[in-house]
C-alpha cells in the first residue's frame, strides 16, 4: 500500500487535499493536538470530513499527539470513543498512555505512533508494535538504513515525512519554547524558538533554523525500502500550498507506480515545489547528517508567495467563461496558468476581465472579488489559476 498523506487545518483544506490527490488527510481536533492555535476540527467538522473522505474512498487520521499533563486527561476517553464512532480511520498518538487506552477501549480505529515519539530503530518499533500500534510515523532523523531495517524487522506500516518544515530538535525532545515564551511545545504551543536568533560572545548571531524537507527526488527509493505513507507537513498552510504540493507528489508517485517517471518530471516538479515554498529545502537526514548547508543563520528567512491568483468557482460551458474568486492581483496582459487535479497544467494570456456586473475591467485588485474570464478550455470548481511559473519545455 502506497499512500499520499496530506495535512488539513480545516474542512476546506481537507477537501482540497483529497481532491488534489491525497489518499488520506491528518487533522487536529480541538483538543489534544499539537497545533493548539490552529482552527482545527470540531466533532461536527470531523464527522463531515470523514463522510466526505469515505465517499471518495479515502481516509482521515486525527492527531491526539500531545504529551498529557495531569489535568489534560479529563474527557480523553469519551473523545476517543467519539472519534471511533464518527468513523475516523486512525489516531496519531505519542503518549504511551493513549496507546494503551485506545487498545483497552477496543476501538476499531487504528493507532499510529506520532513522529513525536521519534522512533529511529527496529527495537523501539517492536516495542510499540507489541503495544498494538499499527503504523509508525518515523523520526524525521531516520535515514534510509534506519527505515529499511525497521521495515525488515517489524513489517509495520511506515509513514515518513517527505515535505515541509523541520524541527531543529528531535520532535518531542525540545522545551525551548517553554523556557523562552512559557508556551508548552509538547502540548501544541510551540513558538518555534529554533527560528529565533541568539547572541554569542562572537559577533555573528547564532541561529539554528532548519531549511525545509523536500524528498521529491527520493520517493522511488523510499518506496523501495518500504515506506507506505508519504506525509506532507503543514496543517497551518493555505489551500494553494496544499493543492500544489499534493498534486506534485501525486503525479510523481503515480508515475513511479506506472514506471513512467522521467528525469524531466523530477526536475519539473522539484521546480514547482521550490517555487511554492517560502523557504529553501533539502532531503535533510535521508542520506547523511545535515551540515551547515541545510540550515539558515539569520533566524527566519522566509519569503511570501503571491503566485495564487484565483480560485475557480464554476465554468459556464455555453458562454465559455470561468468564474474566479481573486486571491492576488492580476491584470489584462498577464500570462497565467491553470492547474487542477484532473487536467494538465496549461497557460493562458488574460485578454479580458469582467466583474460580477458584466463590466470589463483592467485589473482584479480586490481580495476575493468575483471576476469572469473568457476561456475555451473547460475548467472545474476548485481548479486554480496561478502566475505562470515556467514553460514545461524550457530548459529545467
Amino acid at each position, binding site marked *: 500500500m502506497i499512500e499520499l498523506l496530506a495535512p488539513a487545518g480545516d474542512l476546506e483544506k481537507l477537501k482540497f487535499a483529497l481532491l488534489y490527490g491525497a489518499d488520506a488527510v491528518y487533522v487536529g481536533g480541538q483538543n489534544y493536538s499539537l497545533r*493548539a*492555535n490552529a482552527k482545527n476540527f470540531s466533532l461536527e467538522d470531523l464527522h463531515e470530513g470523514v463522510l466526505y473522505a469515505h465517499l471518495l474512498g479515502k481516509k482521515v487520521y486525527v492527531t491526539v499527539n*500531545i*504529551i*498529557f*499533563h*495531569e489535568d*489534560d*486527561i479529563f474527557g480523553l476517553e469519551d473523545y476517543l470513543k467519539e472519534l471511533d464512532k464518527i468513523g475516523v480511520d486512525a489516531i496519531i498518538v505519542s*503518549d*504511551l*498512555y493513549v*496507546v*494503551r487506552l485506545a487498545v483497552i477501549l477496543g476501538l476499531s480505529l487504528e493507532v499510529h505512533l506520532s513522529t513525536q515519539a521519534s522512533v*529511529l*530503530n*527496529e*527495537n*523501539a518499533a*517492536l*516495542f510499540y508494535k507489541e503495544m498494538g500500534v499499527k503504523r509508525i510515523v518515523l*523520526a524525521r*532523523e*531516520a535515514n534510509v*538504513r534506519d527505515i529499511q*531495517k*525497521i521495515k525488515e524487522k517489524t513489517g509495520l506500516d511506515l509513514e515518513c515525512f517527505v515535505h515541509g518544515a523541520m524541527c*531543529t*530538535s*528531535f520532535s*518531542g*525532545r*525540545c*522545551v*525551548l519554547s*517553554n*523556557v*523562552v*515564551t*512559557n*508556551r*508548552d511545545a*509538547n*502540548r*501544541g*504551543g510551540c513558538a518555534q524558538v529554533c527560528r529565533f536568533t*541568539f*547572541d*554569542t*560572545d*562572537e559577533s*555573528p548571531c*547564532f541561529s*539554528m533554523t532548519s531549511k525545509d524537507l523536500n524528498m521529491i527526488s527520493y520517493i522511488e527509493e523510499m518506496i523501495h525500502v518500504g515506506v507506505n505513507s508519504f506525509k506532507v507537513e503543514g496543517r497551518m498552510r493555505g489551500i494553494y500550498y496544499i493543492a500544489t504540493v499534493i498534486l506534485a507528489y501525486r503525479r510523481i508517485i503515480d508515475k513511479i507506480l506506472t514506471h513512467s517517471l522521467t528525469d524531466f518530471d523530477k526536475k519539473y516538479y522539484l521546480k514547482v515545489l521550490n517555487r511554492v515554498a517560502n523557504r529553501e529545502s533539502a532531503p535533510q537526514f535521508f542520506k547523511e*547528517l*545535515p*551540515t*551547515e548547508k541545510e*540550515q539558515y*543563520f539569520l533566524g527566519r528567512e522566509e519569503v511570501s508567495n503571491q503566485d495564487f491568483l484565483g480560485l475557480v468557482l464554476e465554468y459556464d460551458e455555453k458562454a465559455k467563461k470561468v468564474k474566479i474568486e481573486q486571491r492576488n492581483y492580476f491584470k489584462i496582459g498577464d500570462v497565467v496558468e491553470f492547474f487542477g487535479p484532473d487536467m494538465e497544467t496549461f497557460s493562458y494570456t488574460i485578454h479580458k476581465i469582467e466583474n460580477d456586473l458584466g463590466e470589463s475591467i483592467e485589473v482584479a485588485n480586490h481580495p476575493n472579488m468575483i471576476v469572469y474570464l473568457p476561456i475555451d478550455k473547460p475548467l472545474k470548481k476548485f481548479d486554480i489559476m496561478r502566475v505562470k511559473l515556467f514553460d514545461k519545455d524550457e530548459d529545467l
Partner: protein
Amino acid sequence: MKNRFLIIPGKCTLEKVSNCDFLFPLQGFCVGMSQTFSLESIPDCSYVYVNCLLDSIQIEEFQKLLPLFPKKVKGIVFEDLGILNILQENHLHVETIFYGTHAICSSYTANAFLQDVDTVILSNDITKEEIEKILQKVTKKVGLYIFGHLPYMYSRRTLLTNYSKHYSLDYKNQRIVKEQFSKQEFLVVEDAYGTMFYDTRVFDGRVFLEKDVSYFLIDLHLENISSVKNFMDDFLRGKDFPNSTDGFLYRKTIYRLPPKGGAK
C-alpha cells in the same frame, strides 16, 4: 526504605558515597555529556545512562555490549525504548529506569510505562504541584531529577560546528548563547551525536528531598567539583548554590494563546 541518589559524575574522583550510586553515561550512546565511559572502564554492577535516541547502527552497537551486562550493569537509565525491547528479548535482568526526555508529565503516562519498566524519571518541565499529584497516583515509585543543568533540547545536528563553518570561526564547544528577546541563556554542548542545549543555571530541586521516590537524579557532569562526597554533604545540609533556578516548579506553561484582542 531510604531514597537513593543516582549521580552522573563530573570530572572528579569516583569515591563511594553512602546511599548513592554513580550513573555512568555510556560512551557512544549519549549526547551532550562532558564525559562518557566505556562499559569496560566502569566498576562492576554499575548504573549506566543512555540519554538519546539510537539509530539502527547504534542499536546494533548497543547489542554488542550485552555479553558484559550481567557483570557490569546493575541498572540502566535510558531514553530509547529499543533498549527495553532488547533487554526483554535477551532476558537480561537489569533494573530498567525509563527517562524519556519531556515524556512523562502525568501519572497516567507514568503508570503506562511502569507496566514495563522498574521505574521512570518524571519530566523536568512540569510544576511542583503536578509532580506531587503524580507521586500520589503512581503504581510504583518514580524518580525525580533534582540537581543539574536542565537539558532543554537536543538535536542530531552539529549546530556549533555548522555555526563555526558557516562564519569561518574557530570551533569552540560549550558555547553560551543568549536568546535576543528574553535574554535567556543556554549552554550549548556538541559531540559526534549532535547538540544539547542546557540551562546555564543549575536546577535545585531539594524541595522534594523528603518525598518517597525511587531515585533522585543528580547531574554533576557540568559541575566543577573535586569531591562528590563533599558535594553531597553540602547538598544535603542545604548549602546555597549560586546561580540556581527552580525551573518549572512554580511556572505553569500555557499552550493555547488568548484570542486576538486579549483574553476573554
